[in-house]
């Protein structure tokens, strides 16, 4: 029972830590963006078509507070951030929270479908790597993850579009949120992640197969399937939980390219647009949102992991291998 309160204490500490990390991510982004001199308003308005003089632009810059010292701007931004106000987009004059919230679902759908694709593909590959007889190309199959990890994501995307959208007409890029288009975008985004998961999974499966308990289980006369399912697959798949959590970051980052290729709007295209026009509030919001998603997912993974892996439930126990063993063999004495 003591370890339950330990667990709760641990959870609270991790939560606090996560909040700190998100706030730091916001600050960090702010500082990076402010490396370059110049400001977004000038860049936007000094378009040669406009014929503005700097004096024309000054009041607008002042309106957005961009003429203040960097640290003052940071302070203002941070004090707004902590009360949940993400500010107004410099470019589109819309509240950033609204922009982010309307972009988020599409990216989440994409990322989650990509994750689903990645998991299905990875598990199929891993299953085949153990159970496909070598003469049916098991060796080739084991090369697949490493090979697909070496292909830039955009090549996969371009390839899928050219083939499936334009040659076979399976989806229209003008409606990128349709089921088929989402599915193919998810494939493009999910393949590298699935390769990573498959690699780890296959390595773990191989590792489990060399474990003592695997051959001991075999010595109990288990069927192939029972062996695979209970003694090889189950322990191998636990680290996948951590991998999924880490992959979230990659999926969010990868959505930049995938969204650009598949013409989807979401967090990726939002940040790309924001970056090109130095729309500070949007960039900061997206980066800290991505960090928040990552941190939260990892927090959940960390908290869930001990529930899945019984070994971690009593993490801090210390080793006392035999303290609870009766010293005298009661039965032997009885005889």
């Amino acid at each position: 029972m003591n370890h339950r309160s330990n667990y709760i204490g641990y959870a609270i500490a991790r939560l606090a830590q996560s909040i700190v990390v998100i706030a730091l991510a916001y600050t960090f982004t702010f500082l990076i963006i402010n490396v370059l001199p110049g400001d977004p308003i000038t860049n936007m308005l000094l378009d040669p078509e406009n014929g503005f003089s700097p004096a024309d632009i000054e009041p607008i810059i002042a309106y957005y507070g961009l003429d203040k010292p960097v640290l003052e701007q940071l302070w203002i931004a941070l004090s707004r951030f902590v009360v949940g106000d993400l500010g107004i987009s410099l470019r589109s004059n819309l509240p950033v929270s609204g922009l982010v919230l309307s972009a988020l679902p599409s990216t989440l759908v994409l990322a989650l479908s990509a994750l689903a694709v990645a998991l299905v593909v990875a598990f199929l590959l891993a299953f085949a790597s153990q159970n496909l007889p070598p003469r049916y190309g098991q060796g080739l199959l084991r090369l697949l993850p490493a090979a697909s990890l070496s292909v830039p994501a955009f090549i996969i995307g371009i390839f899928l579009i050219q083939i499936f959208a334009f040659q076979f007409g399976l989806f229209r890029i003008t409606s990128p949120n349709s089921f088929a288009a989402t599915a193919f975008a998810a494939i493009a985004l999910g393949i590298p992640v699935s390769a990573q998961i498959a690699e780890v999974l296959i390595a773990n499966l191989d590792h489990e197969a060399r474990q003592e308990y695997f051959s001991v289980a075999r010595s109990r006369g288990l069927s192939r399937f029972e062996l695979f399912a209970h003694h090889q697959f189950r322990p191998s798949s636990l680290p996948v939980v951590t991998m999924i959590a880490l992959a979230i970051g990659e999926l969010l980052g990868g959505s930049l390219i995938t969204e650009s290729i598949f013409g989807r709007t979401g967090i990726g295209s939002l940040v790309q647009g924001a970056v090109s026009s130095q729309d500070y509030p949007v960039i900061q919001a997206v980066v800290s949102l991505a960090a928040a998603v990552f941190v939260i997912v990892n927090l959940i993974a960390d908290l869930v992991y001990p529930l899945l892996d019984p070994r971690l439930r009593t993490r801090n126990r210390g080793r006392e291998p035999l303290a609870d063993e009766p010293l005298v063999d009661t039965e032997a004495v009885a005889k």
Partner: protein
Amino acid sequence: QDTKRNPGGEITFLLASLDSGWSLNEKVDIYTGQVWGQIADKLLHVNEKGEPTPWIAENWDVNDDYSSFVLHLKKGVTFSDGTPLDAAAVAANIDIWAKGDPERGIGRLGLFPSSTYTGTDVVDDHTVRVNFSTPTLSFLPTLGYHKTLLRSPASLNLKPEELGNLSKQIGSGPFVVESWREGDNVVLRKRPDYDWGPAAIDHSGPASLDKITFKVVKEAALRGSALEAGQADVALNIPPHELAGLRGKGLTVVAPPSLGFVSGFRVNTKAPHFSELAVRQAIQHGINRQEILDTVFTEDWGPAKSFLEANVPEAGDFSSLLTYDPEKSKRLLEEAGWVVGDDGIRTKDGQKLRFNLYASPWVSTSKQVDELIVQQLREIGVGVTLNVVDIATFNARVRNNDTVPLVEISRSFLDAGVAGRVLTDLHGGDNWFNYDQTNEKLNAFANAVDNADNYEKRAEILNDVQQHVLEQALFIPTTQLIQRLFVQSPKLKGDVYSGAAYPLYYGAWLEP
């Protein structure tokens, strides 16, 4: 013509971006401008010859020295929220264009002649008088600009965080917003009670098309492929090298002429060596404009004959000053003492004839044109290093940087008077050539253009300006600038373009 008109149908329009938001004045960019053209009306329609034609202003009176304009408005026009488009609404719009509202972070409209604007009087419900302190020939053409959109007074007075909300930005145009998603798409539906289209379009009553979908597809290549695959009807700005293929598939290429400067470079005469006439002229003749057209562009692009687009009424034909003559260039440079060094680059007094060129971040073909120019100038012994940067970096590196001799220009206007404004820094002029006000000849030209109080007189002066600038090689044109190029389904008919090459789909219909 009307007999062929086929009502109904919907079209999908692909474009690269829609993320500038829907706020006022300068927030209208070339992409959102495509949408605005369908949902908001203008006071005038300016055609590709620069001629103002009636739209919401049915007719207008101008005083002798072009400093006061009386506009007579069409009656019965309403915004789609029901408020009338009357004189008060027009005056409110013009005030916002001229002054912006810094309190709400709204800048003025760049091209509007704000410096001489003194105010707008509401004469009666349907008449306004717009006053300027000096002759302002550019006022009427400016009313056809794609950013001088008439919006409902409620939209002009939105709170800062609502300005970008398209649902609250109300126009009086033939289409209204059915749905939209920031940065992604806008779906328009026709307005059934619309009946005040521009005189330039031979149509009355509501628009023919039922629905227009604007959809962002970032990759230019994908816009082309989507069109090819029949997944869209119009695509904006497809790279030139893909056009032949698309034409081959039966698609139509529309390259409406626009008013403005041609593409080319203004010369910063403060840059090293570029105060030398010989160097400037050598470059003027060292550029093979035909090769650029052949390599980068298609037949839709024409050669530059001046630094003003050929359809600008004041433009002349100065082709003879722009011939490709590498021998002449070499000779000019030899005579000026520039001799070829070991690396093929010319040298004088130990200094190499070498400079940095920055491709314009606003023109997608600029990179390819510049790559070719780098190759061509090497032939005559001029070393050029090409840089491609984003807008922010371009601004930081190119503006006010006197080591950059050639600055690429891509600029449209509706009134040629702008050409006088770029010559010097008089009255906040653009000072393209960086002479400030030290060049007597340019000073004289600038004053003459500014003070001209009728179009004919001004046209004569502008002819001399062109002659002088090109002879002096202060501007180095490359090709005609096609600001906007549309590849579209051959079924789409009746599309009309403004002088700034923005489409009006009010009169458009789909052939069955």
